[in-house]
């Protein structure tokens, strides 16, 4: 009876250690996979058609959801911003508020979340199913490297698509904010644009937004591809991996956004 508390202690320590090692092994496999994906970039350059198909899958097919969300986010920002700003008699600054929040934060972040939900989950499910139905092993049997042939084009497709989608989101959002602010709420049109141009800096705001969305594109596609490639090859495993892709991508995007914002804008 004396040994029991000690046994429980060792048991829980072992469980903790198992969890830690498991997490570390996953991180390690993720980085090895990333290295392999990047190693395939030379062979991708020889076959740009593969990249084209993936830009279509990840980018073109996401345009509709991005444009519609951007429009509504911009319109809502304009409505809410006008409510607060007009109380201070500063309704002319509406354009600055809408553009700054879109270009700096909402454009890159909401785009990344939407892409993770629409394209990231699809990537994970596709690759997980390829693994479950042994298509990846089949490729290997034919002496085709599945990472180079399947994963690398998808990774670069996501990396290219994300900043373009984020720019579309911000531009459409600014237009939506303009329609509501100038058309509906009667903010002066000249003040809306000129204040915006005065306060929004190209290097400081726009380029930083593009850098953010590049980082998000990298992380979201990386997570999606790794979860698919690492999935347990059963239908349950694929469904779990797909869920993990969305959850982990969302957490990674929001966490990284704080770090990037602190680095870029926090003086």
């Amino acid at each position, binding site marked *: 009876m004396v040994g029991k508390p000690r046994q429980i202690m060792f048991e829980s320590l072992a469980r903790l250690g198992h969890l830690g090692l498991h997490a570390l092994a996953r991180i390690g496999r993720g980085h090895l996979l990333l290295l392999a994906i990047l190693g395939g970039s030379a062979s991708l350059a020889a076959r740009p058609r593969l990249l*084209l198909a993936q*830009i279509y899958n990840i980018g073109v097919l996401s345009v509709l959801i991005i444009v519609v969300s951007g429009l509504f986010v911009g319109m809502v920002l304009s409505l809410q911003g006008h409510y607060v700003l007009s109380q*201070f008699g500063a309704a002319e600054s509406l354009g600055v508020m809408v553009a700054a929040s879109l*270009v700096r934060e909402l454009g890159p972040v909401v785009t990344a979340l939407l892409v993770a939900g629409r394209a990231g989950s699809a990537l994970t499910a596709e690759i997980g199913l390829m693994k479950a139905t042994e298509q990846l092993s089949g490729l290997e049997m034919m002496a085709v490297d599945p990472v180079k042939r399947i994963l690398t084009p998808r990774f670069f497709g996501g990396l290219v698509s994300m900043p*373009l989608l984020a720019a579309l989101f*911000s531009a459409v959002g600014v237009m939506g904010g303009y329609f509501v602010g100038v058309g509906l709420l009667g903010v002066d049109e000249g003040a809306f644009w000129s204040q915006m*141009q005065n306060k929004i*800096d*190209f290097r400081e705001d*726009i380029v930083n937004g593009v850098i953010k969305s590049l980082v998000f594109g990298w992380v979201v596609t990386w997570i999606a591809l790794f979860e698919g490639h690492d999935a347990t090859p059963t239908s349950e495993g694929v469904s779990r991996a797909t869920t993990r892709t969305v959850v982990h991508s969302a957490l990674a995007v929001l966490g990284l956004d704080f770090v990037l914002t602190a680095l870029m804008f926090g003086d």
Partner: protein
Amino acid sequence: MPRLRTLEIMVGAFMAAGFLALFFLAMEVSNLSADVGGEGYRLQARFENVGSLKVRAPVTIAGVRVGRVEAIDFDPQRFEALVTLRIDPRYRQIPEDTIASIFTAGLLGEQYVSLSAGGSEVNLGDGGLLEQTQSALVLEQMIGQFLFKKAEEG
């Protein structure tokens, strides 16, 4: 998956739209188009107090923007602020006895430099110094003076 030709057209349209959006953000939303860039000539002015004037603040004559504040430095010899203004090259004729003042746009607005042209025949060139300046109004000083005056009266 559509045919290769359609695929290429769709991806091309997507990329064109993305770059167009970036271009729109750069030219219409940000200050890239409003920036004078490397053009324009510089004028300098010394102020006792610049208040909360910031780099890139507008420089106006008669309310029209003619340039921007390029730099604000501290002159340790004279204990004054040395403000460098970059003026659009279209506005060459600024008389040498022009007065530079720091005003506030609205009650809570941003501060800007306003130039009121003098009557001299001689114009300032690149690197010219505006001799007459009027500092920013600091609210606390104004209230202090007001109270002082009231106290003298009563």
